């Protein structure tokens, strides 16, 4: 399957020209939120951020980085598990081990005797770790949106069916539509429309976003991650503004079905139930998280080990990741950005995660701060 056209300069130039024409006739300013962190990365990596700005479209990063929205309380809980319990393996994705908290990070933590932190690429790897280490308890610290939640849940259900009772999951499960409502209700991000995530939508489909058009009158489109994909999505949003007919368009139909992935949704519906969840930057949002149903209690690390991530673990002094995640602050306007907060020495999660807006800005736009320094 050729992907050349998705990167073709004539194609992207043509789409950008159409976008500029549409943006010129739309009420200014045109501010579109890319909800997904992978979009943030792709938009910067392909140089689209500046090209779109020239075309009259300002792209704003949203809350779409699971590692970033997971509050410090969860990370501290994971650190406590591995530093206080012996013969214990805490498995998680690489980014998760570098989040700085009051207790340091999983990377700097000194595990208790016989315990360890293990970086995995897939929850299935954590499960195999449990199988291969009969003398250890293994907890997979799983932060994710609907893209990742089914994979983690399938793995947890497998542990249940195989009665591998040394394996459990510390869930930090976030669902994407809820924070969009929170951001729109707050009204502070002044958004004209959304670029909806590609792979979250591959699971949940289009229906969960319809309230945005229906209740808030705002357009949106699901898009893929190649340059032409992103521009097709943005063109669709602008066409909806021109026509005065906001809806949820699917500009990534080769991957995203209207109904999403029914098998993955069934896995989630069978084993998980909605719960209130505390988001970094967005606060507590009713029904915005997922947790294991009582019949899956054996794989729920929170219940098994009596864990309750504390609510009072605030961000590092001066860290403004919360505002970045709400779409009201550009990373370079944070006082720490590029000075005391860098990819080598991150102070907040948005400078850690590969999808974090601060890391992406630093990597592709340099450490220059937008606010002039006093000399």
């Amino acid at each position, binding site marked *: *399957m*050729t*992907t050349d*056209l*998705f990167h*073709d300069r*004539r*194609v992207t*130039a*043509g*789409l950008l*020209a*159409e976008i500029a024409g549409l943006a010129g006739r739309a009420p200014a300013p045109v501010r579109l939120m890319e909800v997904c962190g*992978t979009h943030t990365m*792709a938009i910067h990596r392909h140089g689209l951020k500046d090209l779109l700005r020239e075309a009259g479209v300002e792209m704003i990063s949203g809350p779409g980085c699971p590692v970033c929205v997971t509050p410090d309380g969860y990370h501290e809980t994971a650190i406590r598990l591995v530093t206080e319990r012996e013969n214990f393996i805490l498995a998680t*994705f690489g*980014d998760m081990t570098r989040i700085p908290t009051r207790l340091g990070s999983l990377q700097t933590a000194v595990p208790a005797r016989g315990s360890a932190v293990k970086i995995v*690429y*897939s*929850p*299935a*790897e954590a499960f195999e770790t449990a199988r291969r280490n009969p003398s250890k308890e293994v907890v997979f610290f799983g932060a*994710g949106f609907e*893209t*990742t939640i*089914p*994979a*983690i849940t*399938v793995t947890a259900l497998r542990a249940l069916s195989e009665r591998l009772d040394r394996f459990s999951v510390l869930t930090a499960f976030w669902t994407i539509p809820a924070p969009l409502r929170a951001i729109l209700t707050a009204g502070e991000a002044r958004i004209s429309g959304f670029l909806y995530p*590609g*792979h979250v939508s*591959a*699971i949940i489909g289009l229906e969960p976003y319809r309230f945005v058009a229906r209740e808030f009158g705002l357009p949106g489109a699901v898009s893929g*991650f190649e340059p*032409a994909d992103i521009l*097709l999505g943005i063109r669709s949003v602008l066409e909806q503004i021109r026509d005065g007919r906001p809806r949820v368009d699917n500009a990534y*139909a*080769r*991957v*995203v*079905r209207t109904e999403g*992935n029914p*098998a*993955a949704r069934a*896995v989630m519906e069978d084993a998980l139930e909605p719960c209130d969840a505390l988001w970094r930057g967005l606060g507590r949002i009713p029904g915005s998280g997922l947790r294991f149903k009582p019949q899956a209690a054996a794989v729920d690390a929170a219940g098994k080990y009596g864990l309750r991530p504390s609510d009072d673990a605030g961000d590092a002094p001066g860290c403004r990741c919360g505002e970045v995640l709400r779409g009201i602050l550009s990373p370079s306007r944070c006082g720490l950005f590029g000075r005391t907060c860098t990819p080598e020495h991150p102070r907040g999660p948005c400078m850690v995660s*590969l*999808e974090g807006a601060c890391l992406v800005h630093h990597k592709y736009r340099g450490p220059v701060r937008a606010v002039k320094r006093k000399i």
Partner: protein
Amino acid sequence: MCLAIPVRVVGIDPSGETGKVDYLGTKIGANFALIKDIRVGDWVIVHAGFAISRLDENEARETLDMLREVQRAGEG
């Protein structure tokens, strides 16, 4: 965490639940529990080791046709 590019299924284990995909020329393991009736040759999106969506070739073709149109308009 997210490869975000399509990969091709090159092998399926007897269980039907796991197998191999070709990622830029390298064969890597993947789990197919979330895809119904997976077949060798299918293009899928893999995330955290799990295939989460099968590519629809007709839709892919339609998008490519649309991009070709934009390309032609630019040349004209």
